[in-house]
């Protein structure tokens, strides 16, 4: 095929990028080579717009075994155990075909984790949809949830936590982010760096079809009317084959056969082979006629760019071929040596002994473009809302509005479609601040949570970025886990737009600041740009996935109230910040003002103190106070236990609306038995923690003295009805 301007444009390459390719090759690329450049140089694989900013994130720490740059991040959890985890987006495919898009998103992130030698032990997801009234929302929600469940349930890994949100900003561009967490032995972690010349390059897994060709470049393009025509890129997930691939890989990993291993994700065979060679400063030569194909007459171009799922590339030690082949045969999977490593530092593609393409590896990796895109700062919004000017709403009315809204409704409709119990190590399931998964056969566990707050990030990205790391940190603390590290999925609009690029840069500044202060490093992540349609971009939506450690199974907590007549203590100061609050949004449809301020000093001090109290077994239940404010958090504690509580009259000077709905940060609610109250207070005072004893638990009624009193069963009903009526 002739390489015309149109062909170049269709490959998502800019004119000067094409010139750059000619320079690097010292000639014109042929069609196959152009395709390969296009796959490697697009945003999704090259991180060309984000790399400069991502470099600033803190990635180190005593607990970090492997930071960003590998298939997933690795943290140390003591003994000889390591946790391997990562989050990834599958937004565009899920909008086009929600079931398969979400399913293959889960499949993809699982491969990232088991390719490093981990047995996956938990799945999480963060899914964002348009407003419920939007004509597409219902079927997207249905498709995505059953796709996530369909894959995870079938492969037998529990889906234990996540978030489901609705906002008009996602009307034309939903977000589907999936996170996988795995467990490995510290001395059995596998990397993607090739070593040695003339080593066998082995293709394992499913056959290659024409599906997903140019998926990566689709993920790097804005949507427009023609996106529907990009249909052939839809991939169908095959969780059954993935299960076989998982077991076969883990079986092979028991031995010392593997030099390097890499899953074929975005840009399939191209990116996996280039990445392995590039990391090892080697070349790689492939005989494409050997690639197992599902369709007849597939061209080298199609083979190199196909994104067929459930495939891996392995570089084997000498003399291990037969041993490895046997394992894959047992699991009924293809196993073919398709090439070898070389010292030429070139990617050489042969088809029936003819060289069809030859590209220096460097040109595809380190010499890929990096952009320092222009960006502008966002001003801190001035306007604060004067609630005295709004129509007065009682606490009861305000709370009911929140609890019955799609965003705050009970998520059982979603989570009951996921197998949360398989593997029998789920100590705490969805519906808590964080899920807790026991390390199999051990007396320790990890806690996991994913969080985002797009409204805050949109209003003021630096604060939003900081806040979301802190909220995630708080969620882990609340269940008694020591936060270790995070992964992040950065969902943003078009980076070529200065305003959007600014949101990105500033959110990252906020994330960086919080991570540094809290010693909560970033060990893996994913960037998804171009979320938007026809110049309308989504709100900046960084999603943070955190992992924490519980060293002793006797000290973890849920937020379910435990028994009557215990004290309720509120940790942290309440100023009554209502800007960007859920109260204003749900009751008045106002989304103005600035997000609540984040004071990292208090955040850290409050969090560490709460964690210590939990570890001393002085707390019966704990919950962080986040969106919806104090009253919403209290109601969640009460509803989950079907137990009541009574909060004493707020002090005179305070406006009850601000006090109960304000979203001030760094706060927790603790349930404390009478017998421990003195000890707890003393400890709080010694650590200079601001706290208030706000009330106590009781039977049946959710009560705020002088303001409201509701039967807890009625509250549950209100909270449970939305999904069932949708």
């Amino acid at each position, binding site marked *: 095929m002739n390489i015309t301007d149109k062909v170049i444009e269709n490959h998502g390459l800019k004119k000067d990028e094409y010139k750059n390719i000619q320079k690097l090759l010292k000639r014109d690329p042929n069609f196959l080579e152009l395709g390969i450049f296009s796959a490697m140089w697009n945003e999704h694989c090259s991180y060309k717009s984000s790399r400069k900013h991502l470099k600033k994130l803190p990635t180190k720490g005593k607990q970090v075994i492997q930071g960003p740059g590998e298939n997933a991040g690795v943290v140390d959890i003591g003994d000889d155990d390591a946790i391997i985890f990562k989050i990834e987006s599958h937004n565009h495919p899920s909008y086009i*075909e929600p079931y398969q898009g979400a399913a293959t998103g889960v499949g993809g992130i699982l491969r990232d984790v088991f390719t490093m030698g981990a047995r996956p032990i938990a799945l999480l997801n963060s899914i964002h949809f348009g407003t419920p009234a939007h004509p597409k929302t219902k079927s997207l929600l249905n498709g995505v949830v059953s796709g996530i469940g369909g894959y995870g349930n079938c492969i037998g890994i529990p889906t234990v936590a996540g978030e489901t949100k609705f906002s008009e900003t996602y009307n034309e561009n939903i977000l589907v982010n999936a996170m996988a967490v795995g467990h490995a032995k510290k001395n059995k972690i596998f990397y993607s760096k090739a070593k040695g010349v003339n080593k066998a390059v082995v293709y394992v897994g*499913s056959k290659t*079809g024409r*599906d997903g060709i140019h998926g990566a470049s689709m993920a790097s393009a804005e949507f427009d009317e023609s996106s529907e025509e990009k*249909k*052939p890129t839809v991939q*169908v997930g095959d969780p059954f*084959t993935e299960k076989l691939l998982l077991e076969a890989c883990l079986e092979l990993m028991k031995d010392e056969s593997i030099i390097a291993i890499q899953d074929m994700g975005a840009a399939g065979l191209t990116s996996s082979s280039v990445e392995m060679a590039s990391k090892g400063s080697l070349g790689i030569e492939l005989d494409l006629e050997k690639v197992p194909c599902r369709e007849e007459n597939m061209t080298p171009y199609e083979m190199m760019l196909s994104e*067929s799922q459930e495939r891996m590339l392995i570089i084997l030690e000498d003399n291990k071929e037969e041993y490895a082949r046997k394992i894959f045969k047992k699991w009924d999977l293809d196993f073919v040596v398709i090439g070898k490593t070389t010292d030429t530092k070139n990617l050489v593609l042969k088809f029936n002994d003819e060289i069809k393409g030859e590209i220096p590896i460097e040109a595809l990796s380190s010499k890929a473009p990096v952009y320092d895109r222009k960006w502008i700062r966002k001003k801190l919004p001035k306007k604060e809302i004067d609630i005295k000017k709004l129509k007065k709403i009682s606490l009861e009315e305000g709370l009911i509005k929140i609890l019955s809204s799609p965003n705050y409704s009970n998520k059982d409709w979603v989570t009951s479609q996921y197998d949360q119990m398989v593997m029998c190590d789920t100590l705490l399931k969805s519906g808590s601040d964080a899920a807790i998964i026991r390390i199999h056969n051990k007396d320790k566990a990890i806690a996991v949570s994913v969080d985002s707050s797009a409204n805050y990030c949109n209003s003021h990205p630096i604060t939003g970025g900081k806040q979301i790391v802190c909220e995630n940190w708080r969620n882990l603390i609340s269940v008694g886990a020591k936060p270790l590290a995070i992964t992040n999925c950065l969902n943003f609009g078009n980076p070529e737009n200065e305003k959007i690029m600014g949101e990105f840069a500033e959110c990252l500044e906020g994330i960086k600041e919080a991570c540094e202060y809290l010693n909560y490093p970033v060990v893996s992540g994913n960037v998804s740009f171009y979320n938007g349609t026809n110049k309308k971009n989504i709100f900046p939506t960084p999603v943070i996935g955190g992992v924490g450690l519980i060293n002793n199974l006797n000290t973890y907590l849920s937020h379910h109230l435990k028994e009557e007549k215990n004290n309720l203590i509120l940790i942290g100061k309440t100023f009554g910040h209502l800007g960007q609050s859920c109260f204003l949004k749900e009751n008045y449809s106002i989304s103005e003002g600035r997000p609540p301020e984040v004071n990292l000093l208090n955040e850290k001090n409050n969090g560490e103190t709460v964690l210590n109290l939990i570890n001393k077994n002085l707390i019966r239940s704990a919950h962080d106070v986040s969106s919806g404010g104090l009253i919403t958090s209290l109601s969640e504690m009460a509803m989950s236990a079907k137990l009541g509580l009574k909060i004493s009259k707020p002090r005179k000077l305070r406006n009850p609306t601000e006090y109960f709905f304000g979203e001030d940060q760094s706060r927790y609610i603790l349930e404390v038995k009478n017998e421990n109250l003195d000890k707890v207070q003393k400890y709080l005072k010694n650590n200079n923690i601001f706290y208030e004893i706000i009330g106590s638990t009781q039977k049946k009624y959710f009560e705020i003295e002088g303001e409201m009193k509701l039967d807890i069963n009625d509250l549950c009903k209100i909270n449970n009805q939305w999904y069932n009526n949708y």
Partner: protein
Amino acid sequence: MKYSVTITLKKDVLDPQGKVVQNTLSNLGMTNLKSIRQGKFFEIDIDENDSKKAENLIVEMCEKLLANLIIEDYKINKLK
């Protein structure tokens, strides 16, 4: 009027189900099986005597619900 509708995966779309069924049949000794693809089948009975209108209705059902047009094709057959 009665119609039947068959829904099949588009040509290049992966058919994991068909694949597994094919392997199983081969393992059961049916080695001269070349290929098998799995789809859906519907028998629809509607209260409409005008066959033009009836057919339009069936098309609408297929497009709106029965088929996932992104990965599937459908075919309509009149039964009686």
